[in-house]
Structures are given as C-alpha cells and as structure tokens.
C-alpha cells in the first residue's frame, strides 16, 4: 500500500507548545514536508529565533543553532558560508526580523546570502505577550498600542512590507508572500518554500518566504475568528504571491523575448 499522507520524518512527533490556532505549527510542517521531499534531513540546519519558535529545536529533527534576538541572519550567514552544500533555514518572527534585526536582514539580503529566510508575520510580538510589531496594522490593538496602532499623533509608525522593502536590493532573488489561513494558501505557501529551498541548493542568492500567520492568543480572538481577521485585514494590506522572482527558473516576464 502506498502512503499518501503521513507525519513528516523531519518533524519530531511530540505535542508542541504552540497555542491552539497558531500558524507556527503549520509552517513547521510545511518546511519539514519539503525537506523530506528533497531528501535533505541530514543536511539541514535551522536557526531558531528568539520568539515563540525558540523551541524549534524540539520540533525539527535536524541540527539547529539558536542566536540572539534579531541576529538570526548574521548567524545564518556564518553557518551557510561554512556549509555551502547544506540547507540553512533562517526562521524569524516579525519582531526578530523587522524591528531588532532590521540591519541584519537588510544586509544579509543585500549580500545575497544563500540561505532561505522563513519570515513568520503574525503582526504582533507573540512570545512577550502581544506587543506592537513593525508589521502590526494601523488601528490594530496591542498591549503597547492600547488604542490601536496610531502612526499619526502617537507616532507609532506604519506597518512594514518586508518583501517590498527588500525587493530593491541586488542580492535578493526570490521574495514571496504566502499565508496559512486555508488549504489553498497553505499549498501555495508550500510551493513557495520548495521554490526557495531549491534555489538555495542551486546557490542562487537570497531567498525569503514571508508567511502571514495567525496569533489567536495575542489577537484575543478564537482560532476561527483569527483566520477571518487575517483574511479581512492582513491579506488586503500584505498582498500574496511572488513579490520578486529573478531565479534562473522564473518564467520570463510577460512581453519579454521574441
């Protein structure tokens, strides 16, 4: 009998610490499915970031390195440069990547570091209990934006579109945004991860998949409500799809050629 669907080999079979409805678990599963399909379990290294996914080493059944908050891309640089034929996954939350680690991500991307960043955008700081993130939407509540994010009077700034921000940098080759709100988007996100990992193994340059992800606990919503909220608020602001693709495998842009 052929096994059509089972537990990924690279994903440890234990109950996770993630809250009900959290997107991190789904994303872990997608990563490990792709690693299994590519046969890379023993050649993969993940940098588990400071954030809710700090326990990634419990879940991923391959090597891991745990760097300081936001320094994840710098550490991943040191790893990937020394282990060129390994799959290096730089896993980051929105606080890690777009606040404290802004310098590190911009310069790693600009140098064209050949690891893949998995950027989990849940529009909030999960681990520390729901503070405003750089990706928190205007008007969205957080413990540090108790009356909603206010870029005007309160000077809280605007939500950062990371893919778009990085797309002008010469070192970036593949920047895509997915979501884990429904099976269709989950499948598309998995394909993006696969594209990025394959490009990394070909040594093509900086690749990143941003993934819009639910945080029911800190959004103060039930899991179904949080999916609804993500669809109504996040997707319209953070458009899904490939934001930049200059990989060798990319379809020629419309109108090119001939």
């Amino acid at each position, binding site marked *: 009998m052929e096994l059509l669907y089972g537990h990924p080999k690279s994903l440890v079979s234990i109950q996770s610490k993630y809250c009900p409805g959290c997107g991190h678990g789904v994303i872990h599963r997608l990563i490990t499915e792709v690693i299994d399909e590519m046969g890379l379990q023993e050649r993969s290294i993940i940098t*588990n970031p400071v954030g809710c996914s700090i326990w990634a080493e419990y879940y991923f059944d391959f090597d891991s390195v745990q760097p300081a908050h936001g320094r994840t891309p710098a550490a991943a640089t040191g790893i990937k440069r020394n282990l060129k034929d390994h799959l290096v996954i730089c896993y980051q939350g929105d606080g890690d990547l777009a606040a404290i680690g802004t310098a590190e991500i911009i310069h790693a991307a600009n140098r064209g570091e050949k690891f893949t960043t998995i950027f989990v955008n849940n529009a909030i700081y999960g681990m520390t209990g729901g503070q405003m993130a750089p990706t928190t939407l205007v008007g969205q509540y957080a413990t540090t934006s108790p009356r909603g994010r206010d870029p005007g009077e309160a000077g809280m700034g605007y939500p950062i579109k990371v893919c778009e921000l990085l797309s002008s940098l010469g070192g970036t080759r593949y920047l895509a945004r997915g979501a884990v709100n429904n099976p269709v988007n989950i499948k598309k996100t998995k394909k993006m991860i696969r594209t990025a990992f394959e490009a990394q193994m070909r040594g093509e340059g900086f690749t990143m998949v941003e993934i819009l992800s639910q945080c029911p606990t800190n959004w103060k919503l039930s899991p179904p409500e949080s999916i609804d909220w993500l669809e109504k608020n996040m997707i319209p602001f953070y458009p899904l799809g490939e934001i930049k693709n200059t990989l060798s495998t990319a379809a020629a842009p419309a109108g090119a050629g001939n």
Partner: protein
Amino acid sequence: MSKEIRLMKGNEAIGEAAIRAGCASYFGYPITPQNELTAYMAANMLPAGRIFIQAESEVSAINMVYGAAATGVRAMTSSSSPGISLKQEGISYLCGADLPAVVVNVARAGPGLGGITPAQGDYFQSTRGGGHGDYHTIVLAPKGVQEAADLTFEAFELSDKYKIPVLVLADGLIGQMMESVVLPDPVDMAALPRKPWAVGHQARDKRGVNHVSSMNLDPATLEKANLKREAHYDMVKKELCRYEEMQVEDADLVIVAYGTSARVSMSAVQAGRAKGLKIGLFRPITLWPFPYERIAALAEKEGRKFLSVEMSMGQMVEDVRLAVNGRAPVAHYGRTGGMIHNEEEVLAAAERMLNA
C-alpha cells in the same frame, strides 16, 4: 624548518597569526586603531579561499562568528573599544552556548567615543564578563608585536581546548607599532580535530542531531549548566594562569602592569635599579584567569609594596588588592584619555610610593 621573520605592524601580525592558526572565518567592521587588521584579513583570507565579510556592524560581526563557530570552524572578529562594547551581547551568547571563538580588542581611550589613542580602560569589561550573565572569557594581554602574534595563534588553540571564547586584549600602540616578528608555522587545517558538538555534516559523521543554544528556560537545569561551567572555569584557573616576573625577588616595590604599561614599566625598573632602588615588575599575561595566588605569595614578604601601573583610572589595581588582601600597601598610578606614561613618570610614581 627555519622560522620566518618579518617586520610588521601589530595589527598585521595578529592577522597573519590568525591565518596561520587556521582561522577559517573572519568578520569585522572598520574602527581605528585596528583598521589594518580588517584590511589584512580581506587581503589575505579571500585569496586563500577563506571567509571574510565586512559586516554592517560589530553586532552583526560577532553573531556571524557565533554562526561560524557553531559549524566547528575557527572563527574570529576584531575591533576596538566602542566596537567591543557592541560585541558584548554576542560574547555572552558564545559563552552561554560554550562556543570557541577569538575576539581581538585593539583598545583605545574611552568612555563613549573617547579617542583613538591607546588605553587600558577596558580591563573591567574584559575580565568581568562584559555582557550579561555568569561567564568569563579567557583574556590574553600581549606586551608587543611578537607576543601579539604568539598569543593570537595560541588563542585559537586555547579556545578550542576549553570551549571558551578568548579575548586578545592589545591596545592602539601594539596594533600600530612595527617590530620584527617570528611567525608561527601554519597549522594544517584539515588535520584539526573534528568537533563532535558542531552542526553540519550529520550524515558524514553518522551522529544524532546537534543543537547549539544558550537557552535554558528551566531554572534548575540552567543552574546545573552554570555550575558545571563554573567548575570548568576553576580548572582553567588552575591550568592557565600565566605571568612574567622581572627582578621581583628582593623588590621592596613590585610594579604590576600588563601590555603597553608593562613595556614602559620594564624601562622604569631598569632605570630604578641603576639608581639602586629595589623595584621589580610583575606582568600578568592572562588577565583572566588572573594570577591572584602568585601575587598573594609575593605579598608575604615583609614591607613590600605594590604599584599597579595602568593606562586607566585604575582597574586592575582592584585585582591586585584582592590578591594582596590587606597584607601590603597597594596603589595605582597611570594616565588616561589615550595618554601614555613614560618611564620617568612611572619611576617617579614608584619612588613616591617607596618613600611614603
């Protein structure tokens, strides 16, 4: 094999020694007075197929070291005082994860941006941990270009042996001056022992999964890990204390000085002896572990006094006092702000103390 002798700047000698020690990855960021070191690494690492990155900051550079060290290669960064402050977060993580690495501080005057001339005001930062948490790094203090090369080379060996980052604490004078150096023979990088705890090459090494982390959210487990590390530090203290003595046997006054201050104090001791003064020099080479026991033994002699000479407001003097533990008078003399005392000034300070 006959040794190779070259006339080199301290900064370049440090770079060459690191390359010969098998440094596979170097990450730096420009800052005076260590710029020649970063440039030397760029010029010599890349053609050798080794890794050199000019990072976007010292914070990033030390975290690149963290990643590189996690893969088991010999990795290094260098900077000067303000940049070393930025590296403290990464050094704490390196220590928490028990990773070897070499950090070179070609120190300058502080606090703040301070100045670019040599100083020894980073002694507290270097020997007390510098970052957060219960940890130490091994601290080696060269007195000239030759020793800067030798200690940098050895720093890689010690760091690998003990799984503790090693800080080479030089200063702007040592970095900038030229002296002749006998360079160490290059190590065979392929022959360096594999590190079974490193990430990568899981299939080749036929091992289980490796995790490199400083995190430990269970207080009881973290306490155990810290106690184990402390016991390891105790062993390092026993094995590694290193110092040099000059005419201390009959000395009524022992100058305690490291690095450039020790170099100046050597001349002061010679000048003092020529005048018939019984003065000597005790030069710690390891600032951590600090040679407390030897200084304590020296303090047993009736009537002996100690003068800590430092290019700072007096930092190492606290360790000298700890070692002497009230058995003898201890004082500090030194200039600060990037000013370097000369031998006359040091001798005058020694004479004042002798006559006090």
